[in-house]
């Protein structure tokens, strides 16, 4: 029956193509032609050419909805999981939605709260897709109340053009109530309150001869969002019951995850303070998987998402699901136009601090020789002094004239390479200081120029260069609005302790954009490293060659 499902959707599309309805979607194709480059250890694949292609099609007709994504890996581009191959349907669904119910059968993405208990999502840049294949029901019994139920298997991989599911089944319910919307009596209250709770359970057969494994594992928790005028606060806390897995060495401890955000925003000023506490919260639908496979939940990263090349790609921090206690503070202030520091066009300064520590694992009340396999106790936000990550950064954005503006940034990053492994060339804490100067010049209404100068300086340890030493990056970008852009970037690892590895990584990129169509060509070197989005990372090997990409929306 399952194999006829895509065919059924196709038939439905055909059926409704003669009727009125709304058809939207997008296409993306990325082609790489790679060369061998022994200097950076880039390999040429046997096929030489690699291509990933995707097409999403979404159709709605009245209350009916259907959609699918065709995927093609012939073969996959560099850095993608090696089990993606073939051409076929990677996502498909049909459903019906009105104001009261929204039902989906097939593939769907979903998130409960901040995702601590369940988040199914796709991040194509990471090759990450943990969609749920099954059924989802969303009910809105009255305004302000949303109930959700999901049931299904997760997508593990895509082989020979077919979705491969994980071994475990995922079940979850979530309820959320906006008190002011649900109860009119509270309408005059100046405080917005949204409360929610979720329960997610997975089933996987006990496949271990040496242990009695819990086959049904639950995660549950509650959350709240409050807003009072310019102040907002949100928090979520979830508990995971016994979930022995390959990640946690099959211990029988409970796990927990907690996040909170406290913020204040007013014109010209934004303040944010966040905290996160995680212990033993790797929650997958297959207890034997690792890396980024089959995560049911999502543990948000609590550090600023950087965009400049060196700071974003050399030392990114991957969330540690086994345990971390993290805090972040963020300030954004804009000096008014006409003020002493603001000048004619105003000036914005931002400061951000984030830090992550190992949680304390108490063992004083634990008998490691008993048969419970409970190996320690933890408490939320009980941090040790073992540093995993620290990021202190400032930036100043200043517009000097109608044509010229600049952004100056400084970053101090410390990453514990023994825990958040980023490099094979170093141990312990790597401390890097990064400076970036971005200059933008608008030549006229259509032509503009942008330049970045970046330097990354790794602190020496006992006089010795750590990791790969210092880097410099220069980028120049020329845009002809609205159709063309050209850029050239070069990364130079001039401080590498091995003089033979003091390598340049030049890359030239140009693109053409017309309405919803975009072509892009780039040629050059890309260094090996981790590519991270929101604390989720994948390894990308070094490459040298041509990349062509095409995107189209409709």
């Amino acid at each position, binding site marked *: 029956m399952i194999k006829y499902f895509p065919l059924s959707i196709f038939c439905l599309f055909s059926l409704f193509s003669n009727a009125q309805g709304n058809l939207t979607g997008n296409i993306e194709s990325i082609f790489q032609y790679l060369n061998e480059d022994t200097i950076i250890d880039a390999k040429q694949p046997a096929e030489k050419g690699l291509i990933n292609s995707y097409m999403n099609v979404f159709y709605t007709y009245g209350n009916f909805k259907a959609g699918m994504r065709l995927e093609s890996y012939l073969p996959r581009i560099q850095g993608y999981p090696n089990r993606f191959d073939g051409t076929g349907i990677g996502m498909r669904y049909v459903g019906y939605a009105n104001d009261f119910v929204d039902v989906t059968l097939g593939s769907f993405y979903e998130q409960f709260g901040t995702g601590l208990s369940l988040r199914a999502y796709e991040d194509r840049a990471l090759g990450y897709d943990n969609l749920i294949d099954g059924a989802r029901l969303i009910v809105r019994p009255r305004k302000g109340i949303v109930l959700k139920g999901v049931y299904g298997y997760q997508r593990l991989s895509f082989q020979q053009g077919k979705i491969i599911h994980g071994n475990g089944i995922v079940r979850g319910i979530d309820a959320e109530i906006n008190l002011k919307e649900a109860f009119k009596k509270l309408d005059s209250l100046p405080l917005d309150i949204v409360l929610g709770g979720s329960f997610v359970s997975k089933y996987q057969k006990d496949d271990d*001869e*040496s242990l009695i494994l819990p086959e049904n594992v639950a995660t549950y928790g509650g959350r709240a969002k409050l807003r009072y005028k310019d102040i907002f606060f949100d928090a979520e806390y979830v508990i995971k019951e016994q979930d022995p897995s390959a990640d946690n060495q099959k211990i029988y401890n409970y796990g927990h995850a907690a996040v909170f955000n406290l913020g204040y925003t007013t014109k010209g000023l934004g303040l944010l303070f966040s905290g996160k506490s995680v212990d033993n919260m790797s929650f997958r639908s297959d207890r034997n998987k690792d890396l980024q496979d089959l995560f049911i939940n999502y543990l948000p990263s609590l550090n600023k998402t950087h965009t400049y090349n060196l700071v974003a790609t050399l030392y990114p921090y991957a969330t540690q699901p086994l345990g971390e206690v993290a805090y972040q503070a963020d300030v954004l202030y804009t000096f008014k136009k006409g003020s002493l520091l603001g000048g004619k066009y105003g000036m914005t300064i931002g400061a951000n601090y984030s830090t992550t520590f190992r949680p304390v694992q108490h063992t004083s009340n634990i008998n490691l020789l008993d048969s419970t396999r409970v190996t320690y106790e933890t408490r939320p936000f009980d941090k040790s002094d073992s540093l995993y990550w620290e990021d202190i950064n400032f930036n100043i954005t200043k517009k000097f004239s109608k044509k010229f503006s600049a952004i100056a940034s400084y970053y101090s990053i410390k990453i514990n390479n023994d825990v958040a492994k980023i490099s094979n060339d170093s141990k312990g804490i790597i401390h890097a200081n990064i400076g970036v100067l971005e200059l933008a010049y608008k030549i006229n209404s259509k032509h503009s120029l942008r330049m970045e100068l970046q330097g990354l300086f790794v602190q020496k340890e006992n006089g010795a260069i750590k990791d790969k030493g210092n880097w410099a990056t220069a980028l120049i970008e020329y845009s002809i609005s609205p159709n063309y852009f050209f850029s050239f970037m070069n990364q130079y690892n001039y401080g590498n302790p091995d003089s033979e590895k003091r390598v340049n990584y030049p890359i030239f990129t140009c693109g053409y954009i017309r309405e919803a169509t975009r072509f892009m060509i780039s040629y050059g070197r890309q260094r090996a490293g981790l590519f991270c989005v929101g604390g989720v990372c994948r390894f990308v090997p070094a490459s040298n060659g041509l990349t062509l990409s095409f995107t189209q929306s409709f």
Partner: protein
Amino acid sequence: MKNLFRITVAFLIAFQFSSCDHVKDPYPKQESLDLDTTLYPGNWSDYVANDWPQFTANSNTNRNVLIEDFTGHQCVFCPAAADLAHALHEANPSRVFTASIHSGPTGIGDFQVVSPPNYPVDFTNPQGVEIGTYFGTNDGGFPGNPRGTVNRYNNGFIFQSPAQWTSMMNDQITQNNLRVNIQSVLNYYPQTKGAFLHVEVEKLDQNLTNQLGIVSYLIEDSLVGDQKMSDNSHNSAYVHRDIHRGNIGGQAFGRTLTSNDIINGKYYVNYSFVVPNQLDGNHNAENMHVLIYVYDKVTWEIYQVIKQKIVP
């Protein structure tokens, strides 16, 4: 508000069955590796002195084949598959062995269920059902009966339709890639119906890095009983062959060979067990044998299987 209450209750009821399991003591009760010495009708020291085998060098050079035929007494297409499996054994009597496991992908299904008066005999056993249930939903699964494995070789799928058995068996016989060698000695004592099985396992291919498991199937050679035939008729004189009666030790997937089992580079595993009555209630140890196999704990592939008669 009533609707909200009803919907909430419905959600909670729907999920109450999927709550979580709590395990206080994660360690399963261990299979006792101690031999039941009472099954020896005499002083155990005499057994050790006189009957405990001393293995000589294993001169076997052939890799054998185990065909697991997942079957059922009410499965109309199963007799043809059983005939094929038996014919393959007859064609290679010393190298191809069959185990007829009465289980479907969900364990005891419509084909295996006992339904007197026509199908009164329960051919199933807990280990066979566990194996069927496991492979029913894991490692590629299998849709129903008849399906089988040929040395659990993964030819795209571990489970194959009978149409594939002959060619897969021929391939393995021809390749004759012997990576693990097994030899065994079994001492049976009719007075107690007890038996002691001694097995020596030699890993010939040191490139095998995955863990190895060892399983001993107790097989009833043949039994005349009831079977639904391909024309839907009931045959009360059907000869059931090579009936899997269970695993010695009671573990569906046997036990893992560990360094504790190694003496001078070879693994030694010993079992004691009581030879059960036939499914018709009579005791006849001559109608029983053991199939001993060693398999890869990751890929499931069976690297070697041997047949051990209970009464030589």
